[in-house]
């Protein structure tokens, strides 16, 4: 039975349960809802919850556990001789799964009969041919053990799913009947539903947190793998970055310093552009602009924030780079060799961050109470004095937060760097030279065809981890600043 049907059936049972539960509650109070502990809808919801939640819970757990269980069973069936030299059991298992899905689809399309598909003595060549006819991908010739394994894989899976469907529906029915019988005027359905809502919210929160934890753990483990293959001190203190793509390890130098330097340099240039301009724009918009200008300029700035970064990358590559080259290149001051440079990427990234800084700061400045401004005007201060000495200090924690948020975006930005700053990892002070950042290198390390277990690929995780710690540190610092000023001023 397809999953969708199963879900619909459970929902239907819950819906019927809702109506019946509500009716029974009303009936138990003699048709007068004032005689009930809770509103009638709560009794209905109680039944619906107790029907759907355990059923869906079982469904999810089953869907997670069954593949693991079946895999381990089938994996045990494959003889060691079948696992070739240089290959691994997991590769063979992938072959088995592929064959099983192939059979499934071929049966569905009618290229092969159900009997033939599950016949253990079927002719292998014939099966392979009909799979190919059905348009299924079959990599190598299917061997006898693989076919057998695939067949039992199919049997176990479909058997498992049938049992699952029955179990889920039974649980739903049991929940419905149980809670329907619970329903009488005294029963505190409202409190139960409240509990249910709480659990629901808790579940959402835990999914968010668990995913984060999962991502961080995977980063940590892979970084650990990397450091087993490559010395940590060379990674952290190495000043050259030159991964070799030819062989496996050995000749690569994977020092993170040039990348970190590139990241920081470009981010600093970007912030030097974005923070003053963004902040001044925000001050203009919130303090000086007439409502008409404001109603027109603010959405304009927000549109700027919606431009995809790849477009900014194009802008860097095609407009800003050549422009800078004209001024600072060999025809001009002679400081710049090519259009791709720290300056190009930094300037464009700065432009990208302006709306970010200005929009956040604008909201923060607007949130400063008018009474504060009145107090200053009432003492004979003019507008810029008021802004400098009263409004900005009051808004400072928020503005610092906005700037640090912009900084984390600058550090994490990839596309503009790839297109605007070049790909050369180098430690240099000249802002007109090409450099690259941590993010850009993560992309290039993983998009090559390096073996996934090699240090050249695993280094991506170490880089990711470094970046993560960097932005985390930045965020913690932002929080600290915000707290500190809060204490002082509230």
């Amino acid at each position, binding site marked *: 039975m397809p999953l969708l049907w199963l879900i619909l059936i459970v929902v239907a049972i819950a819906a019927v349960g809702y109506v019946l539960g509500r009716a029974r509650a009303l009936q138990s109070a003699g048709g007068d809802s004032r005689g009930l502990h809770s509103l009638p809808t709560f009794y209905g919801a109680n039944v619906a919850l107790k029907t759907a939640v355990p059923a869906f819970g079982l469904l999810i757990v089953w869907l997670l556990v069954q593949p693991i269980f079946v895999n381990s069973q089938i994996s045990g069936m494959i003889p060691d001789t079948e696992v070739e030299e240089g290959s691994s059991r997991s590769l063979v298992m992938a072959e088995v799964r592929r064959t099983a899905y192939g059979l499934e689809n071929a049966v569905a399309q009618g290229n092969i009969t159900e009997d033939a598909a599950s016949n253990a003595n079927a002719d292998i060549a014939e099966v392979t041919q009909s799979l190919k006819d059905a348009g299924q991908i079959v990599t190598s010739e299917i061997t006898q053990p693989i076919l057998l394994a695939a067949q039992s894989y199919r049997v176990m899976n479909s058997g498992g799913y049938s049992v699952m469907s029955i179990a889920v529906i039974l649980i739903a029915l049991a929940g419905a009947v149980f809670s329907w019988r619970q329903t009488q005027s005294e029963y505190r359905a409202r409190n139960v539903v409240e509990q249910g809502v709480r659990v629901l919210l808790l579940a959402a929160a835990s999914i968010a947190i668990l995913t984060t934890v999962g991502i961080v753990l995977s980063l940590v483990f892979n970084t650990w793998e990397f450091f087993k293959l490559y010395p940590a001190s060379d990674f952290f203190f190495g000043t050259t970055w030159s991964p070799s793509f030819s062989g496996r390890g050995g000749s690569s130098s994977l020092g993170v310093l040039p990348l970190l330097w590139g990241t920081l340099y470009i981010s600093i240039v970007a912030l030097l552009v974005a923070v003053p301009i963004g902040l001044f724009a925000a001050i203009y918009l919130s303090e000086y602009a007439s409502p008409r200008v404001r109603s027109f300029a603010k959405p304009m700035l927000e549109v700027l924030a919606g431009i995809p970064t790849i477009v900014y990358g194009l802008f860097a590559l095609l407009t800003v780079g050549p422009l800078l080259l004209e001024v600072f290149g060999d025809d001009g001051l002679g400081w710049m060799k090519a259009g791709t440079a720290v300056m190009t990427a930094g300037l464009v990234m700065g432009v990208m961050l302006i709306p970010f800084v200005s929009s956040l700061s604008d909201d923060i400045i607007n949130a400063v109470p008018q009474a504060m401004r*009145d107090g200053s005007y009432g003492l004979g201060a003019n507008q810029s004095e008021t802004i400098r*000495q009263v409004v900005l200090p009051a808004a400072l924690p928020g503005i610092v937060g906005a700037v640090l948020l912009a900084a984390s975006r600058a550090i994490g930005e990839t596309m503009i760097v790839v297109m605007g700053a070049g790909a050369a990892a180098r430690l240099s002070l000249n802002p007109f030279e090409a450099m690259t950042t941590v993010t850009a290198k993560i992309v290039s390390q993983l998009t090559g065809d390096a073996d996934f277990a090699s240090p050249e690929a695993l280094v991506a995780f170490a880089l990711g981890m470094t970046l993560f710690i960097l932005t985390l540190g930045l965020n913690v610092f932002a929080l600290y600043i915000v707290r500190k000023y809060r204490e002082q001023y509230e």
Partner: protein
Amino acid sequence: MNDMSRVERQVDTNKIKLECRDCQVYYGETHAIKDVNVDIEDKTVTAFIGPSGCGKSTFLRCLNRMNDTIDVARVKGSFKLDGEDIYDKRVDPVQLRAKVGMVFQKPNPFPKSIYDNVAYGPRIHGLARNKAELDEIVEKSLRRGAIWNEVKDRLDAPGTGLSGGQQQRLCIARAVATEPEVLLMDEPCSALDPIATAQVEELIDELRSRYSVVIVTHSMQQAARVSQKTAFFHLGNLVEFGETGQIFTNPEDPRTESYITGRIG
């Protein structure tokens, strides 16, 4: 009204500091102040009384053009400070507000230290030549605001960390620190205990020797105690304006009488 007789009233000799004629204030469509004529005398305390929402704060804010900061507010009429129209194009509202200071209905200390709060005005207007002078101004102002003893050991603490009443006195100290010629006080004592109230009233009395003070208050006793002139507002109209003793003992308008005796409010 026993205490009335104890207040010695010195009147009529003072010249007019602020002359307001045919004042109208609109908030969008709302007509908040209608045809108000008031003369604020020099070296005099003028009290504005009236039920809540009758326009006392609105009128007070006209006197130093604080209504300019409200987009929807429109002010009409003539306001003459020492004979010069304060709504004239050539008048800089910033300069004006240095002369006509204001204490607001709700305390609004800046997010700065207590010291910096008080030193704010003097710094902006360059009233102190050096740090010692500034220190002196700050101390004197805090003493006049009746808060010096409470804050003298923590001048560096944030002004926003004080209690509501302390914040209000800090705002009073901040306003007197700029030495305004006219001080507008919008319910300065509404958050204060009787002792602090008495101290603020003492301050008002002291300020009277040099400046003119306009005070909005909901306390009849306070109006009677501190003011020489009283204006009674009702629904945006100036109902009655005259000697405080006259208003409280022998009001002309029946509305004034019922408000004072507590029958409308």
